[in-house]
């Protein structure tokens, strides 16, 4: 007995990939060769196990899991996109509303300072070029 096992041929045989003559010839060899028979039995057992596993887990389960993972990834992407849009619009709104000069000091500080200044001597009439000092107007109003 010189055969050390022919696993390639066994695979072809199991997969029904052999022609009729080749198949008959290999069957004759299997009758004679215990090594190839044992390999064939082993392959059949492995296949049976795989089939068993496949029967217990539906074939589309893997797809569903992948699909779910994909959907989740898409949802995250969509959420990130939506959040970016909200942040962008918010930034636009904020910048639009606050463009221009900003007071550095807090309002409370300015108010306190302004109230302190009110106790100081009043500035003269027509102090500014653009805005009239109008207090004197209401000291004498003709009706």
């Amino acid at each position: 007995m010189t055969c050390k096992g022919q696993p390639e041929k066994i695979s072809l045989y199991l997969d029904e990939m052999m022609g009729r003559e080749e198949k008959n010839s290999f069957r004759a060899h299997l009758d004679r060769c215990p090594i190839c028979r044992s390999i064939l039995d082993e392959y059949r057992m492995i296949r049976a196990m795989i089939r068993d596993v496949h029967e217990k887990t539906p074939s589309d389960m893997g797809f569903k899991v992948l699909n779910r993972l994909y959907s989740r990834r898409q949802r995250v992407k969509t959420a990130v996109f939506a959040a970016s849009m909200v942040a962008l619009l918010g930034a636009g709104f904020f910048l639009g509303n606050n463009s221009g000069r900003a007071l550095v000091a807090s309002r409370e500080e300015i108010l306190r300072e302004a109230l302190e200044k009110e106790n100081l001597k009043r500035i003269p009439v027509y102090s500014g070029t653009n805005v009239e000092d109008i207090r004197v107007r209401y000291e004498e109003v003709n009706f």
Partner: protein
Amino acid sequence: MWRISGSGMKKLTFSLLFFFIFFQSLLWAGGAPLEIFCKDKKVASGFFLSPDLAVTTDSILLYNNIYFKTETKTLYNYRIEFIDRVTKLVFLRIKDAQGIPMVLPEDNILVETEPLYIHEKGKRVDVGFFTRKLNGYGAFISEDKSLYEGTPLYDIEDEFAGVLIGNLDQNLYLFLYADMLAFYRDHLNMIIKQGRPVLNIVVTEMWEYSGIQVKESRNELVEKGDIIVALANFQINNVLDFNRALYLVDPASPLTLKVIRNGKLKRVTLNGGK
């Protein structure tokens, strides 16, 4: 599910920003600004109450040959419709102005320290903050030394808050509330046609108290020192109230005043006189 490429994302971002800026500009309270010039120098601001009726302050009467600039036009032909020396307001009918009238809110309650804004070159500029209501006026604090009389002021929600009329003290400025502007807008024809009674008295504002005090009188029924607290059915807290009430009474009919004289409330009936 649609996908956005890199360049598509950029386009979308710019489109959204553009849309947002455009939308914000639409949300402004209308009232395209009016600038008043004399010899290429800006002398005052104003705004439109109707497409051809503008309002500013009487400081423009100091200048000759004034002209007006809106966002799109320069206008030269105008006539003075009415001057109210008490409020300082001057109403102008400007030919071919086609201005966008200011939206005047019916009730605009400002909160202490609420920021106030002006519109300058298409931008909203923070100019100070509201402090309190003062004898019918709004008072606000500003460190901006380039404010012009007649400038419309806007609140934090970009609604019209009032028109700047002058400086009261240091950084304290006064503005007239929207309701006063609405009053003139709605009654201007009647005011021009009817006028108001002439009482021959000089009054002074009592800044700390309600009512107005008679400073001089050439009216035999009103005495110097009287504090006027009511006119007809109108309560008088300040000069603005008195001014407005006088426009609303019939100048030809007898007029009832309630005055505090020597610590006692007294009713005085004056004969009408235009």
